[in-house]
């Protein structure tokens, strides 16, 4: 390469590049109205949120306000709100019930920003009555909860009961997810009264064996599923064979009635919401994640077989969960997308979720 370069080649290429870029940059002067334009943009983004100005709002409140504008609804960010945000439910067992995104993005440029810390919106229940069903997955040495949306197999009057049946007897669309509850378990009775769902499972429910962390995760899987599927459910009383249980699979289940443990303790740290497992779409493919990471930074890599074809990132939140999305141009083919968070200490990446999908 350099043998025929002659004297024109700078002695120190790095210095030459550094100097040239700095000089080139110095010749480019931004217009003076940047701050005014930013303020205008901020005003457009936050107008009408009703929360007023001020720096004492929490991140969640700001994020929720953002969503309130986007979706045209104001919703508190409590409990199961996040279960309603998701756009396209995977429907492994039936024809897709198409749902439009409940978190519309106001402009393309915003797609790199977090759009929601999981605020539920009425429009999301337009996802064709899809049921939120939680599964467990062992990821990076921890058992964590992951959520899918499933089409109800029948048309049950009670969403909580339907989701419970689906959790026990349905199949997760994502092969990385599983349920440790024995499939032979049947629901003897299910009642909701005054915010408490009382679930009586057949004796088979007690017949699994699992470690303490897996057991805790599985109990939370049940609680998360029921509280997500039925907004009236705040607590779950778990009975097996008519008896309220203190232990399950040899491990304590915690205080009854059971409540949702904090999401940061039990949820998968990053969920890939779109594309859903096994779906087909055109290009560009919208990759939407819900997660929490150091500085919010979620790394996304797309693989075709073993070959990495794309690497990008989105910014979610740190210390809480937020949704973020990006678009990736891909040629027709079959791919998998993997989401990672980055170790703050050494920059190593840990995979947290993956989805296989097809571009037509």
């Amino acid at each position, binding site marked *: *390469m*350099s043998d025929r*370069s*002659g004297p*024109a*080649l*700078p002695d120190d*290429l*790095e210095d030459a*590049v*550094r100097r*040239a*870029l*700095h*000089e*080139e*940059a110095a010749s*480019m*002067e*931004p217009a003076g109205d*940047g*701050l005014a*334009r*930013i*303020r205008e*943009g*901020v*005003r457009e*983004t*936050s*107008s009408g949120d009703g929360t*007023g*100005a001020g*720096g004492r709002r929490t*991140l969640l409140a*700001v*994020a929720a306000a*953002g969503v309130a504008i986007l979706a045209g609804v104001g919703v508190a960010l409590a409990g199961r709100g996040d279960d309603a945000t998701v756009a396209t439910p995977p429907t492994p067992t039936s024809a897709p019930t198409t749902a439009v995104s409940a978190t519309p993005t106001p402009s*393309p*440029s915003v*797609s*790199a*920003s*977090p759009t929601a810390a999981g605020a539920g919106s009425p429009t999301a229940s337009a996802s064709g009555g899809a049921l939120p069903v939680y599964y467990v997955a062992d990821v990076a040495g921890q058992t964590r909860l992951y959520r899918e949306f499933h089409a109800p197999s029948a048309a049950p009057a009670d969403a909580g009961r339907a989701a419970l049946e689906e959790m026990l007897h349905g199949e997760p669309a994502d092969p990385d997810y599983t349920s440790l509850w024995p499939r032979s378990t049947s629901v003897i009775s299910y009642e909701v009264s005054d915010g408490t769902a009382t679930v009586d499972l057949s004796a088979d429910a007690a017949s699994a064996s699992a470690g303490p962390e897996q057991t805790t995760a599985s109990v939370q899987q049940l609680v998360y599923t029921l509280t997500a599927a039925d907004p009236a459910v705040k607590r779950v009383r778990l009975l097996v064979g008519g008896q309220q249980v203190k232990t399950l699979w040899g491990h304590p289940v915690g205080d009854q009635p059971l409540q949702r443990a904090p999401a940061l303790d039990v949820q998968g740290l990053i969920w890939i919401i779109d594309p859903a497992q096994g779906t087909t779409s055109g290009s560009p493919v919208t990759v939407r994640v819900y997660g929490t990471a150091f*500085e*919010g*930074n979620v790394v*996304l890599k797309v693989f075709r077989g073993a070959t990495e074809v794309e*690497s*990008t*990132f989105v*910014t979610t*939140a*740190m*210390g*809480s969960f937020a949704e973020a999305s*990006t*678009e990736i141009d891909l040629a027709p083919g079959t791919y998998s997308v993997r989401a990672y968070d980055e170790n703050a200490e050494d*920059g190593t*990446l840990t995979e947290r979720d993956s989805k296989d999908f097809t571009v037509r």
Partner: protein
Amino acid sequence: MSGSDGAFRSDTVPAPGDERRWDADHAVTALYGAHYRQLVRLAALLLHDVGAAEEVVQEAFIGLHGRWPGLRDSGAALGYLRRSVVNGSRSALRHRDVVERHAPAPGVDGASAEEGALAALERRAVVDAVRALPLRQREAVVLRYYADLSEEEVAAAMGISRGSVKTHTSRGLAAVREALGRAS
């Protein structure tokens, strides 16, 4: 912009040591003053379009406004801005006409030749060579040698590993070297 519209109310910037007490408006104003021009130039080196670069950087600041309460740290905020600028530049390029992207830069020859300065010619040649690099290599080279970021910071801004930064940077430099050799 007045206090009454509720969105952006403050022009005063507290002392830097107070940053944890800044509200989002303070933070955006302070970080704008410190970093806006450099971020625009960074994006402009990636996009070759100062106007588009400004839009990308403005969007990044707008995004920062909403996120400040979760950051409360100017270092983390700058990291967020860099990532947003790199990501926003990628999006802008993706949406830009491919033909335009590969058109030769204006004034590649002629103008600078008339200056008669070898340094100007060399600078032009280097800038053109960087401009011709594949996107990831260009990002790595610009972040490393214009923004003067460490490998770790480049990795964070690009959302890739440090190993990949090394690879993209060294390939980028090799391609620049080759292009300069060809040009002579």
